[in-house]
């Protein structure tokens, strides 16, 4: 069983998207791209009458890390999954591995990029940029109570063993 830390257990916060609130205005995308070299790392998927912002889930199982041939993705002590831009060669193996389609190749900067949970801001005690800017209060960074319902509800977790306790 994997005993990797989750940012939910370390920071005691969870990225929650209130789908009743998301209006698909893409303010999060605009703000995120401003903070990240002009490339947004959150994706607002719009369907006919709904919008869903997708972030990196900073998963337990991290298929991206498993697929990377250069060990260029790492999980920090805080449980945040980060791309090491010095080691990354831009082979896009992680892009193929991610079930949520979150990683992207930035050809200009020659690395793969993905949501970094606004690490610098979070470490300074602030919320990630998308949460701060969301006009409709749809993107939330709220206290995690460790109930594991996310694991049960996760559409990709059909064959999942017991989670590490925290």
């Amino acid at each position: 069983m994997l005993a990797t830390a989750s940012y939910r257990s370390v920071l005691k916060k969870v990225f929650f998207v209130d789908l009743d609130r998301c209006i698909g205005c893409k303010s999060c995308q605009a703000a995120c791209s401003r903070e990240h070299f002009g490339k947004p790392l959150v994706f607002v998927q719009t369907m006919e009458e709904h919008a869903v912002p997708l972030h990196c889930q900073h998963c337990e199982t991290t298929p991206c890390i498993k697929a990377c041939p250069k060990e260029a993705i790492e999980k920090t002590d805080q449980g945040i999954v980060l791309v090491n831009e010095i080691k990354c060669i831009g082979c896009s193996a992680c892009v193929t591995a991610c079930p949520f389609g979150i990683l992207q190749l930035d050809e200009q900067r020659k690395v793969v990029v993905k949501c970094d949970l606004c690490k610098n801001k979070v470490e300074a005690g602030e919320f990630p940029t998308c949460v701060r800017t969301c006009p409709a209060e749809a993107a939330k960074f709220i206290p995690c109570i460790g109930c594991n319902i996310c694991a049960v509800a996760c559409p990709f977790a059909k064959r999942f063993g017991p989670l590490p306790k925290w």
Partner: protein
Amino acid sequence: MYDEKMKLEIFQNLLSQLSQKIPLSRRFIPVPEKLEGFGLLEFDSEKCWACSACKVQCPEEALKILETGKKRTIALEYWKCVACGECVDSCPKEAVRIKRIFDLEAFLKREVLKCVEAEVKSCVRCGKTIAPVPQHIEVKQNVSELVVPQTYLSDISDYCEECRRQLSALTLLKTRRKL
């Protein structure tokens, strides 16, 4: 490194030096030991993923990707190559090496050399390329060693990242009973 004009000058010097010792009837010229900036890429098609990391990292934009539906070709605009070795260092499969040979004819004729060709896996939903087949197979293999759901192996890997995002969004909406 060297630009085209400088290279040509250096080359003219080299040619005149060499022609004094070797008759210049050959296409491939061995590159003298301490001389930088000249070489010929060799791709091992057994190992190569056709992932294009080499193309992404190439500082001279000499490597190009040509994709036509089912196949991806990695090609080299030879006259731009300065044999810097970025492609060698960045290759995840160690499938590229630089031979210390200079292809004079390809250089002078500005040839685009075909390096490697591979099939690509296309998204079942939109037809966009997901990844070249050799890379796709290995990534899928690696990921299956994790405790991940069957859904990844049987469904998700057949979709490109854009369609995966749409699917994730749809699944999220369904789980939260919005749809």
